[in-house]
């Protein structure tokens, strides 16, 4: 199966600073990947390269069979749905529904289908009740959800998201997780920049770790979360459920809440 996203020895430098150095990885359709690392390690740069807002200094970034250096961001939008930090700057329509409809409309989706997609996207994130509101009338966390709905409505083959759960409460985080899982099951690939390793453990399978512009780790997330020393060296902390699972030696090393709960119940009742 050909890759949905491929970074081939990508280096990116600007103003004399090397933001990314020799980064190489591929992501297959349906894969759920966490992009993790300290502040300033280069994660946002990766997302901007995928959307075509930046072109690599050397190396190639491919979305499917498209070389991003030869495509404009609006062309890449047909395959890539994105959520950047500070959703406030991504919202620009007069109502939430209009804003979510923007992407599908501009990329040529048929009218009846647009309405259906908007409804689905809003419902999946609990925004149906505020569809007619002005985006700036929503509290900041819900603006982020509105921007995410816009990306989901594109039903893209690849979703790249920057901190989709920052500042969200428990219910909203669960909705985001469910919506992303549903997209992945439909075949979309996910690349999610996140500090929230609890969320990552719940929704994502694979971890790419960036350290000062270089790829320091590319392997299943479970392996990373079980490796306390490596986490510490990377400036990361294992989420509470992973630590509990490890400390109790739960069989199978579960990381997701449902599985940990099951193993825990068995352990405590035994």
């Amino acid at each position, binding site marked *: 199966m050909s890759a949905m996203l491929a970074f081939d020895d990508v280096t990116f430098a600007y103003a004399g600073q090397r933001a990314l150095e020799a980064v190489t990885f591929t992501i297959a359709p349906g894969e759920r990947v966490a992009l993790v690392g300290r502040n300033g390690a280069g994660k946002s740069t990766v997302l901007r390269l995928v959307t075509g807002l930046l072109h690599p200094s050397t190396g190639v970034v491919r979305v499917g069979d498209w070389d991003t250096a030869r495509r404009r*961001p609006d062309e890449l939008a047909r395959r890539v749905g994105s959520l950047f930090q500070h959703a406030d*700057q991504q919202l*620009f329509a007069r109502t939430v529904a209009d804003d979510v409809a923007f*992407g599908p409309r*501009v990329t040529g989706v048929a009218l009846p289908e647009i309405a259906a997609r908007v409804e689905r996207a809003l419902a999946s994130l609990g925004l149906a009740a505020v569809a007619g509101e002005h985006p700036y009338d929503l509290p900041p966390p819900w603006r982020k959800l509105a921007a995410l709905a816009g990306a989901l409505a594109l039903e893209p083959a690849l979703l790249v998201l920057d901190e989709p759960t920052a500042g969200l409460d428990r219910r909203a985080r669960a909705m985001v997780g469910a919506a992303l899982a549903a997209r992945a099951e439909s075949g979309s690939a996910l690349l999610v920049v996140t500090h929230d390793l609890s969320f990552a453990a719940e929704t994502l399978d694979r971890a790419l770790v960036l350290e000062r512009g270089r790829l320091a780790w590319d392997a299943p997330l479970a392996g990373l979360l079980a490796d306390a020393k490596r986490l510490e060296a990377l400036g990361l902390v294992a989420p509470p459920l992973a630590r509990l699972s490890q400390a109790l030696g739960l069989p199978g090393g579960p990381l997701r809440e449902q599985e940990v709960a099951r193993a825990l119940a068995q352990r405590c009742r035994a």
Partner: protein
Amino acid sequence: MRALHPFTLCGAALALPALAWLLPAPWGGAGAAVVALGLCAIGGEGSGVKVWRAALLTAAPFWFFLFLLHGTAGMLATGPRLTTMIASFLWLIAVLPPARLIEAMVAAGWPASAAFLLSATLSAVPALRERGRRIVDAQRCRGLDTRGGPLRRLAALRALALPLVLSALHEVDERALALETRGFTPGVRRTPLAPPRDRVAERALRWGLLIGCVALLVWRIA
């Protein structure tokens, strides 16, 4: 140029348009416009071309309307004057960082709130430009095609204008609140952190410009 005292720079930015309007048309206005555009080119420091080009582009629609309304004579009379105003303002923005203006005003005894208001006006244009860029980026990443002929570009501009203004206004609200969290105390004088140096020669120049403009005004009225 940037080492000059902020008040000197402001003085020049005010004096040039004043001279443009006070001096007889068309050569008075034209002369002032040339000086203003020249300042743009020098003051831009590397991006000087961008500054005077921006000035000309901004002024162009006004020239067009002047021609429609007043014919060639009117256009030649008022056009350079408007260009001087625009060019002076853009030059001031390029050459005076808001932080320095605040320091100068605060050191001279102005209340901090007045200083911030003025500096916010100065930083409004670059801030809007930056915000516009971010909105366009977001629109492009959602599929909006921003190249193409003039009609396409106009449509793209329309897609940008409303969100730009609305989000900017909204942010003004949030920023006004945020600024209140940074220690404003009524009746307390802000401490200048790095007051800009004011030379005797510059002060003389500012007075000279003021007296010159007033004298010119009196001469024109009389």
